[in-house]
C-alpha cells in the first residue's frame, strides 16, 4: 500500500512503510525541458525537510531539488547519471531521484494530495 503526495516546489513523494521515494512531477519535467544532468545524494546522507538534496539540469536551466520530507537517504537512482532523459520520459516512475527513510510521518501528511496538486498547477 503506497500513497503519493506533492509539494508546491513540484516534487512528488511516494511513501511505502517508512520509505519515501522522491522525484519531480510531470509538470516540472515539462517546464524544465530536456534534462541533461542529474546530481543525486549519497546513501547515508541526512537531509531535513526543505533542504537541498539533488540538482537537475536541462539544456535551458539548472534547478535544485529539495527534500519534501526529512530523513536519511537510502538509495539514489544511478540510472539517471547515464540516462538523464528518463526524467522527461517517465518523471513519476522510472525517473525517480532518491529514496529516504522518513523521520517524521507528520511531514508527509502535511503535503498536498494529487487532487490538490493538480488544482495548484492549474492556478499557476
Amino acid at each position, binding site marked *: 500500500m503506497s500513497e503519493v503526495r506533492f509539494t508546491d*516546489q513540484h516534487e512528488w513523494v511516494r511513501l511505502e512503510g517508512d520509505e519515501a521515494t522522491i522525484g519531480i512531477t510531470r509538470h516540472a519535467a515539462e517546464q524544465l*525541458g530536456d534534462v*541533461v544532468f542529474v*546530481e543525486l545524494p549519497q546513501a547515508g546522507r541526512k537531509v531535513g525537510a526543505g533542504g537541498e538534496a539533488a*540538482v537537475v539540469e*536541462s*539544456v535551458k536551466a*539548472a534547478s535544485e531539488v529539495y527534500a519534501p520530507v526529512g530523513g536519511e537517504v537510502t538509495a539514489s537512482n544511478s540510472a539517471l547519471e547515464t540516462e*538523464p532523459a528518463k526524467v522527461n520520459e517517465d518523471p513519476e516512475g522510472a525517473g525517480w531521484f532518491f529514496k529516504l527513510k522518513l523521520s517524521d510521518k507528520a511531514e508527509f501528511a502535511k503535503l498536498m494530495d494529487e487532487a490538490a496538486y493538480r488544482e495548484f498547477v492549474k492556478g499557476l
Partner: protein
Amino acid sequence: MTPFWRTRDSILRDLMADTTEILKQTPLHALHLELGGKMVPFAGYAMAVQYPAGVLKEHLHTREKAGLFDVSHMGQAFLSGADPARALESVTPADIQGIADGMQRYGLLLNDQGGIKDDFMTTRLAGEAALYLVVNAAMKDADFAYIGARLKDQATLAPAPTRALLALQGPLAADVLERYSPGISQLSFMQAKRAKVADAPAIVSRTGYTGEDGFEISIDGKDAERIARALLAEAEVLPIGLGARDSLRLEAGLCLYGHDMDESVDPVEANLTWSLGKRRKEARDFPGAERICLHLLNGAGKKRVGLRPEGRAPAREGTAITDKAGKVVGHVTSGGFGPSLNAPLAMGYVEREFAANGTKLDLLVRGKALGAEVVPMPFVPNRYKRAKK
C-alpha cells in the same frame, strides 16, 4: 524544486527583469502562439523560447536539416549621408570603408575607453549609397541613440522598426530557400543582396548565429507571416526558439552581448581582434585606440576562452574559474550543455597566464571543484559556405 521561472539560466534571468513592462510583439506573434511556442519576455519582446519539440530536438534539427528563427526583435536601420562608411568608422574599429559591394561584415561598437557597447553587422548592398545595419535587440535603442548622436553631422541613421527578420539556418537551408528565391544559393558566406523571396522584396544575407550554413532574410513586417508559413510548410523546416538559438551559438563559439562581452571589456580581452580592420589598427583612428593598441602589442590582462568541463555537469554563467591551487582566475560568462557536443561547454574570461589551449583549470560548481580544460573555439566545427578562392 525551484520552478523553471526562478532558475539560474542566463536567458531566463534577463527575462525576469522585464516582466512588469508591456511586451512588444513581432509580426509573427500570432504564428508563434499557433505553433505552441512557449512565450517569454526577452529584450522587451514576447519571444518563443521553445516550441513543443523542445530545445534539444530543435537544436539537433537545425544542425541536421533546417530551422526557422524569428529574430524580428533585432534592430535594423539604414545609415545614409555623403560617406556613411567613413562616418561609421568613428564608432567602430572594423574596416567599414573596405566592405565590397554585396558584402556584409561583423563589427564592434565601442565607447571612448574601447569598451564594447554592442556587436553589429554592416551590409553594403550593390549600387546603394546607404549602409544596412543590424544590431542586438536589447541594445538597439541605446545603439541607435549613440550612433545617431556621434555621427549627426556626417550621416543620418534611419531605424526600420516595421521590418521583420527571419533566419533560416542549417545544411538544407539553401535547398529550401532556393525554392522561394531562385538563384539565392549562389550567395557565399557573408554575401548579401536584395532579392525576391516568395515574391516579396527582401534583403538576404548568407549569415547567421548558429555556425551552420544559412540565411538571414529581412522583409517588410506585413510579408513576414506569409513567408514564415511558406518556409515552415517545407518538410525540412522546424520553428526554432531562443533556447536552441543560445545553445547553437555557444557551440559555435559566438558571443552573446551582455554576457560574453560588455562595456567592461575591449576587443582584445574579448578575443575578437579579428574584427579589427588592418588599416584601422595602423591608423589607430577609433574610440579607445590607445588602450586597444597597447593590448594588441602587449596582450591584455585577461582573455575570453573556451572551456570543456569534465563529466556531464554544466557550469553556468557566473561560475568561478580557479587554477589547480584553488585561486580564482576568472568567471564563466556563458555555459550550458551542448546537444551536438553531447557534453557541457562554457566560455569565460581568465587571467592571461591561464588562457593557453590545454591549460587545466577547475570550475566551482555548487561548491565543488570540477576539472576543465581551455579549448579552442568553435566547439562544433562551423559549416559556412565560403566563396571558393
